[in-house]
């Protein structure tokens, strides 16, 4: 299998010519990430703690099932060759083949691990910075424009720098994902803290809460809904930045599977990787949706 013989280095060699393609894929993943959060949000709205009505489930399934049918028909009964449009069965077989080689599980696990670690680090930093900037006017004046400028740097622009400074192993990838995950939390939390009901804050002050206790008793609970929506956006960003990181310099992971399959012309594996990213992204988003529900029941 040619797959095993390829190392991360050969991917690096291609990175120059792949920049454009990676960027366009980044853009695609962008719209994907946010729409995933969007549908799940509307689901929780509709559910309202009473469970999804059958009609909502049925309507939600209409488009995916139709797309799948269309794909199947187009692949089986049209003149489009397999190397441009593999059939669903071929994609499933590609998955089985990779799983038997012991690669599929590894790739999924390493990608998930990178997303979760980067997400955890990034959102913690985002929460801390958001609290600082949202609560202190001085900190806001001091940091806002700088953080805004850092935020404006496109994710791929960090890659060369991170690769040179931090090498090609896990650290630069997790750092990149953390950068991506930090900003949505930072922005939403800082904004929300600035708009906590001043009456409640004054009441807290009147009852003798110190700054620290005011934060934990009044301000943070008041912004829980914003924190959760920040976390949701951060998760979508984490998946985006994961693919960006893995496309450039890696020898494992779903982003690597995409690049590698492109180089080998394995359209079935490209489809497999994209489907897995969709499923994993949606599943992790749904998990955050559950956390959101629990938190909003407690703090909403």
């Amino acid at each position, binding site marked *: 299998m040619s797959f095993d013989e390829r190392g991360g280095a050969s991917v690096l060699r291609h990175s120059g010519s792949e920049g454009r393609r990676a960027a366009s894929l980044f853009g695609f993943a962008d719209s994907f990430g946010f729409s995933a959060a969007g549908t799940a949000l509307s689901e929780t709205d509709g559910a309202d703690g009473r469970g999804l009505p059958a009609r909502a489930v049925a309507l939600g399934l209409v488009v995916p099932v139709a797309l799948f049918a269309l794909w199947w028909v187009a692949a089986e009964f049209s003149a489009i060759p397999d190397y441009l449009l593999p059939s669903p069965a071929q994609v499933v077989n590609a998955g089985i083949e990779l799983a038997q080689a012991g690669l599929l599980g590894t790739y999924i696990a390493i990608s998930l691990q990178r997303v979760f670690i980067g997400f955890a680090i990034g959102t913690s930093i985002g929460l801390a910075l958001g609290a600082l900037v949202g609560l202190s006017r001085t900190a806001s004046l001091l940091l806002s424009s700088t953080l805004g400028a850092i935020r404006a740097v496109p994710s791929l622009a960090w890659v060369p720098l991170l690769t040179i400074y931090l090498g090609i192993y896990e650290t630069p990838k997790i750092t990149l994902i953390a950068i991506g995950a930090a900003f949505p939390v930072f922005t939403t939390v800082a904004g929300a803290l600035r708009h906590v009901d001043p009456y409640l804050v004054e009441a807290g*002050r009147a009852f*003798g809460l110190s700054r620290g206790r005011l934060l934990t*008793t009044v301000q943070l*609970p008041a912004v829980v809904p914003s924190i959760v929506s920040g976390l949701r956006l951060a998760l979508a960003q984490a998946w985006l930045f994961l693919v960006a990181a893995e496309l450039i310099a890696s020898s494992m992971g779903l982003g690597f599977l995409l690049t590698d399959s492109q180089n080998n012309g394995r359209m079935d594996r490209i489809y497999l990787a994209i489907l897995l990213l969709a499923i994993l992204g949606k599943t992790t988003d749904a998990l955050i949706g559950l956390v959101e529900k629990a938190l909003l029941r407690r*703090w909403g």
Partner: protein
Amino acid sequence: MSLTAPASATATPALPVSLNGVGRSFTAVDGERIVLRDVELRIAPGEIVALLGPSGCGKSTLLRQISGLDRPTSGSLTIDGSRVAPADQRCAVAFQEPRLLPWRTVARNIELGLPRGTDRKRGAERVSELLELVQLGHAAGQKPREISGGMAQRVSLARALARGPGVLLLDEPFGALDALTRLTMQDLLIDIHRAEPATIVLVTHDVDEALALADRVVLLGTRFDRPGATISRIIDVPGARPRDRASTVLARLRAQLLEALGVPSHHGR
């Protein structure tokens, strides 16, 4: 900040309050805007004083000076002889709006009013005692959005009472309630004051409320030739509480106060 208030309120004595030439002005775009000037008032321990005046005359601003949530630009205030600290913990405030934390239950909201460092058991006892006092024992586990406006104001009152304050400051606490609930709440406040006699300063624009509750009614007003409100009149209200709302003495005082507020009372026609 002195945190002398013990966990049980019944032990806290009512404290005297003194306002010495208090003034407050705000810097506006077109220069200084004077809200209060030369407010001179001594309030005895356990006394109930009603601050009465037209809307926007600075009653709430004056209350905020006593609580230490705002500072005067001139003059000084003392509670029990010592200067009012920022957010002075010898006071407790019930605001115009209930200002309850929406994610906390009624009981947990009242808990917020306990002095820092109250031990858990004492605190829980005090909260259930207060729930009984404001007749909300049945609503302890409910969230603020599940209860009525009158109930929310009672929770706010219980929260203010939790620390057994030396000075209880009430900023139009019944202003947003319907007329009947308001009368019930006034009676409740009288009962509470009898059970736990704190010094009470009450802001209101309701003349009847002031006469039903206060030992003295302090009228705030602005003279046409000078900016800034100050005390224009102090009226002693006779009679032990609860008072007969239809008493002729009160009716005469009511007419005087309305007249002073610029409203024809049509009394004695």
